[in-house]
């Protein structure tokens, strides 16, 4: 029986661009990598009924989300020849303009890295128990709906 390693994907608040840089930097000793694909989700200041979104507050069923993410990781590694994959998702408040999702895949060649990144983003959005509460400037809110 293989033991599945559960990695934490959650970060408190926004993902810092400097963290993205250090993640990239760490791969410069992995000389078999030829391509990195990165997806970043950024909170939009959408205007809905004349009110502007100032940020999104994320919550999750964390235990189920991490178990689910472990399954996604296994499925993606089984499908694509990846060197590595890193996923970070915000919990709590993320202001408009800040980064709330960081998906990072690396491979010897571009096709695998690009396709794996896109598919992982789709699976994160559709199958992880995470919810976004869009907060307006007057502190009212509505719940985000994924398309």
């Amino acid at each position: 029986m293989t033991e599945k390693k559960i990695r934490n994907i959650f970060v408190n608040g926004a993902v810092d661009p400097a963290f993205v840089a250090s993640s990239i930097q760490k791969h410069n000793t992995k000389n078999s990598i030829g391509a990195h694909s990165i997806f970043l989700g950024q909170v939009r200041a959408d205007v809905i009924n004349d009110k502007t979104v100032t940020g999104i507050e994320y919550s999750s069923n964390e235990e189920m989300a991490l178990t689910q993410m472990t399954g996604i990781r296994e499925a993606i590694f089984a499908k694509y020849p990846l060197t590595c994959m890193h996923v970070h998702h915000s919990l709590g408040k993320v202001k408009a303009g800040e980064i709330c999702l960081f998906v990072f895949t690396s491979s010897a060649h571009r096709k695998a890295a690009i396709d794996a990144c896109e598919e992982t983003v789709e699976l994160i959005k559709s199958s992880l128990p995470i919810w976004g509460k869009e907060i307006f400037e007057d502190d009212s809110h509505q719940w985000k709906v994924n398309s």
Partner: protein
Amino acid sequence: MKTTVHFYGQLTDITQTPVLELEGIADTDSMIKDLLEKFPGLSQAKFSIAVDNSLVQNNTRLKDNTIIALMPPFSGG
């Protein structure tokens, strides 16, 4: 016999609490009946049910100290 129910996302707007303890609930169908009496607004809500972190589709018998999650459609990312 104790059942702990966690509410997520927009469901907490209806329940006004993230968690509730119920006593003497035999299965998920009777749990939903009980919750709809407490929170009539839940009848308008769409959600899936997890019993001890596993999603269930059909009526499921509950043991003592079961953890239930009521989860509306996901909206991460």
